[in-house]
């Protein structure tokens, strides 16, 4: 299998790859890292305080009311789960499609997935009210009957989908890390060497092991591909299987999956544009990589835009007055501002990516990637809150505004995400060293 396409610049040899990618791990970290780390820890602290307050006082500290029973925290949950979809897209789906550019970004994207799923998991947990009984969501023989779970409930499917997704993503990420951990072991000494020796499981690069390793990697990619689609499909079932106008629609599974990939790729772009600059990895994460990811963002933006239009068409075509009302209320009602932020950020602005010059302009792509994430957060907010706040019974109509506790919890989840990501950048190779070596321009095999 020879390909002449060059993804890594600067005429690198395998030895250069090892040296360049290990540089940020073996030398000290610079001031920007410490500044970012302190900022992330501050946010994390604020979030921890908000969660502690919620746990002691109860979720009455939030802005929820009898009409709007799901709002900020479920928005955050769906937002983070969506972010967590790009990692597996890049590592599994692009692997099956033989997209070699994935090797420069898959490691960071997989790490991002793990941290995003951790952030997502916090929200349903604290929403339970009595999170110390969270283990009741697992089917284990218990002294309450045994009282089993209701396997007809999409919320329970969610528990299985998200925990499976987290475990499989973790296993996939670790499997990819083993050869690189061995590289780190062989360059380290003292305590570091002992730690990496245990983590790398005695890896020696044997071809017999590589043969099985590649086979398992392919199998995991094949398993993770339907898994990534299933996770956001099941998240969308939380809404689609209810009878709330605006939620009860069959378009939700593909619409949510496209949205998840859209927001996840944008977050990957945000992080990669920063990382390539700060860790001096411009030869590995090149303008061509950013360009390829921008095309995926543009494609998924069009899919999401089509879904928004389809929802409106179906609401009108259904002839159902409640359905029609919800959509008119979304676009023109008291929360129309949120709806139009969503449309502008997710559908209108990404159209600038049709121009190759924009896709190759790092500042423009960085700015756009931030706006897409704002837009995608608002998408979930719009779906959840505008569908609930004016229901079938006008006497129970209500509004919703978040409390400072809810805002601090969201800020805290960003703090957790960036704290984990910065630690990852400091202690583990951000780019899959062994995989990048395999896609350096191959010599002719005799």
């Amino acid at each position, binding site marked *: 299998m020879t390909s002449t396409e060059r993804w890594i610049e600067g005429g690198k040899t395998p030895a250069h790859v090892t040296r360049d990618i290990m540089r940020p791990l073996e030398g000290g970290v610079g001031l920007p890292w410490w500044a970012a780390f302190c900022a992330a820890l501050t946010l994390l602290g604020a979030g921890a305080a908000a969660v502690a307050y919620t746990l002691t006082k109860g979720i009455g500290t939030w802005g929820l009311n009898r009409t709007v029973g799901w709002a900020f925290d479920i928005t955050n949950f769906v937002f983070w789960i969506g972010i967590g979809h790009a990692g597996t897209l890049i590592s599994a789906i692009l692997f099956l499609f033989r997209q070699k550019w994935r090797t420069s970004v898959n490691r960071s994207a997989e790490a991002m997935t793990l941290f995003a799923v951790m952030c997502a998991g916090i929200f349903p947990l604290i929403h339970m009210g009595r999170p110390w009984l969270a283990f009741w969501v697992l089917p284990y023989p218990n002294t309450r009957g045994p009282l089993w779970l209701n*396997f007809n409930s999409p919320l329970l499917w969610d528990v299985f989908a998200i925990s499976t997704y987290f475990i499989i993503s973790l296993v996939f990420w670790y499997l990819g890390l083993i050869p690189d951990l061995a590289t780190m072991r062989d360059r380290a000494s003292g305590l570091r060497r002992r730690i990496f020796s245990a983590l790398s499981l005695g890896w020696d690069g044997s071809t017999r092991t590589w*043969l099985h390793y590649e086979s398992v990697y392919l199998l995991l990619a094949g398993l993770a591909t339907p898994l990534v689609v299933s996770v956001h499909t099941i998240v969308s079932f939380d809404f689609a299987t209810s009878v709330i106008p605006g939620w009860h629609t069959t378009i939700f599974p593909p619409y949510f999956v496209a949205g998840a990939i859209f927001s996840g790729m944008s977050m990957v772009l945000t992080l990669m544009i920063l990382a390539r600059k700060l860790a001096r990895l411009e030869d590995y994460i090149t303008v061509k990589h950013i360009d390829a990811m921008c095309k995926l963002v543009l494609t998924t933006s069009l899919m999401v835009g089509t879904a928004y239009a389809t929802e409106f068409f179906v609401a009108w075509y259904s002839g159902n007055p409640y359905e029609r009302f919800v959509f008119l209320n979304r676009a023109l009602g008291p929360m129309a501002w949120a709806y139009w932020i969503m449309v502008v950020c997710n559908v209108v602005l990404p159209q600038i990516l049709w121009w190759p010059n924009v896709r190759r302009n790092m500042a423009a792509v960085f700015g756009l990637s931030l706006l897409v994430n704002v837009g995608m957060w608002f998408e979930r907010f719009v779906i959840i809150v505008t569908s609930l706040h004016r229901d079938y019974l006008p006497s129970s109509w209500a509004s919703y505004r978040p409390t400072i506790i809810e805002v601090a919890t969201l800020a805290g989840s960003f703090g957790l995400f960036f704290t984990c990501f910065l630690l990852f950048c400091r202690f583990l190779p951000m780019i899959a060293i062994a995989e990048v070596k395999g896609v350096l321009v191959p010599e002719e095999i005799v």
Partner: protein
Amino acid sequence: MNRRLFLASFAREADVIRAVRGIRGMGCRVVDVYTPYPVHGLDEAMGLTPSRLPVVCFGLGALGAVSAFFFQSWVATIDWPLHIGGKPLFAWPSFIPITFELMVLFAGVGTVGALLVSRGLLPWKTPLLPLPGATDDRFVVAVDREDALFDAEAITELCRGCGVLEIDARAEAAS
């Protein structure tokens, strides 16, 4: 007892493939080749058979799916039947999501576990050989010195012809 090996390191994947073909052509056994990344074509040159782990993966996936489906069916129909608006107890379509998730979970985690155990990749293990650079930029061929057909001079000559960087004719693998 330690195993006595002959090690030759190369800098290019094409060279190592040529050397492996040559050594096997002489009738000698190539114990293993240590490389920083998977070299395609090397498994064929070494005459390795494809991995059988896909069979393990299929079996575990089937186990996960079947046990998840039967467990949910048993709970819903026998152990804790819940009557919900007169709907059927054996509502099998709603058991599919969890059946699918557990299929993936069993197959994924189990296959990786099988890989690690079958290849002896465990936290307390260390590489058996001193292999400078095999996780960096070297491709190291290990030949069994106890092989009846082993001829140090002929193999050294062959490796030189393939552009060898370094030869260690007295390596010993801890066993």
